[in-house]
């Protein structure tokens, strides 16, 4: 096994509410995800997406981080997904431009680690100063000792799914 491998990658050819990485092998030490996201929602704006792990829809998530001069803080045990740590470009932004999202998941399969952490870096924006932009750093939490075998990335809502052209890869670090 190489010390870094692309486990899964692709580009959407139709709209989809989710990007779902399933049956993730347990043979790596860390996971990394990169995806570019855009929706058909109107406006030169961006919106947050959500993340769930292992299909868990219980209130076992939290998030902490910051964007520009503000802070996002959604405590553990109060959230049923990791909110707003990913970003999606809306349709009023420059054509063909996608929000960029990067996620690192250290020790995803370690069952000693009682709270898994997902490290997020996101950026979105365009060359026109009237278009909204977004840059953030955050960490999302999933309160579980279970190994992570599924990561699901959600668009802002079912009404505004990821559009065709949104792309992704999942990598494994040895």
């Amino acid at each position, binding site marked *: 096994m190489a010390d870094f491998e692309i486990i899964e990658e692709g580009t959407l050819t139709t709209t989809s509410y989710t990007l779902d990485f399933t049956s993730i092998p347990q043979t790596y030490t*860390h996971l990394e995800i990169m995806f570019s996201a855009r929706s058909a929602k109107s406006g030169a704006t961006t919106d947050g997406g959500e993340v769930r792990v292992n299909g868990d829809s219980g209130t076992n998530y939290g*998030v902490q981080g*910051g964007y520009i001069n503000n802070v996002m803080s959604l405590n553990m*045990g109060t959230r049923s997904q990791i909110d707003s740590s990913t970003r999606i470009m809306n349709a009023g932004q420059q054509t063909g431009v996608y929000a960029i999202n990067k996620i690192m998941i*250290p020790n995803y399969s370690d069952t000693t680690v009682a*709270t898994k952490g997902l490290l997020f870096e996101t950026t979105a924006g365009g060359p026109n100063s009237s278009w909204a932009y977004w840059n953030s750093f955050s960490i999302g939490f999933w309160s579980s000792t279970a190994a992570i075998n599924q990561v699901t990335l959600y668009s802002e809502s079912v009404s505004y799914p990821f559009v065709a052209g949104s792309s992704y890869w999942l990598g494994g*670090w040895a």
Partner: protein
Amino acid sequence: MARRMGVVMSTITKIATATPDGVASFTFSAISGSYDDLMVIGSVKGSHTGGSAFSNCTMTMRFNGDSGGNYFWKFNKAVDSSTRGADASASATVTGMQLNLVPTSYSANTGWGQFKIYIPGYSDASGNAAKRCYHLGGYGQGTHGSAMTQGNHGWSTTDAITSVFFQLDWYNFVAGSSFTLYGITNA
């Protein structure tokens, strides 16, 4: 979704793994200078059982065994919903680079710290006045709170980095703490 298994994309080399347990510090030593950048990815937790559910301590990083006042650090911090902004020791007098907040082992503290540290140009001794690091990390636990740190750290020297030292600033690492060191070669 399309699936493509086992395809090599990057020249990333796993150099070493450390699993400190019952010790306050450890060192990745004899690091080869044959890569372009280093990356450390890990999970950490401290052994202190007192305090409160949200107690934490800091972790310090040093290079090449240098414990002199040759470091700085400056990072963004978000803790719970009330503490935010920059935290820094920006003068070149501090004796280490303060990193991730590390949760303790107080009975109600289920949190684990998670982090990544990127060290570009670590072996460049050609005249760069200082080595720089980027780190992103944090932790969350129970319903008690969470913390995130993200920032810039530095070591004021032109020396190539050959060892990386980590120290928990309060008590010891517990079992399950894990650090993986990678070398990254740019194409």
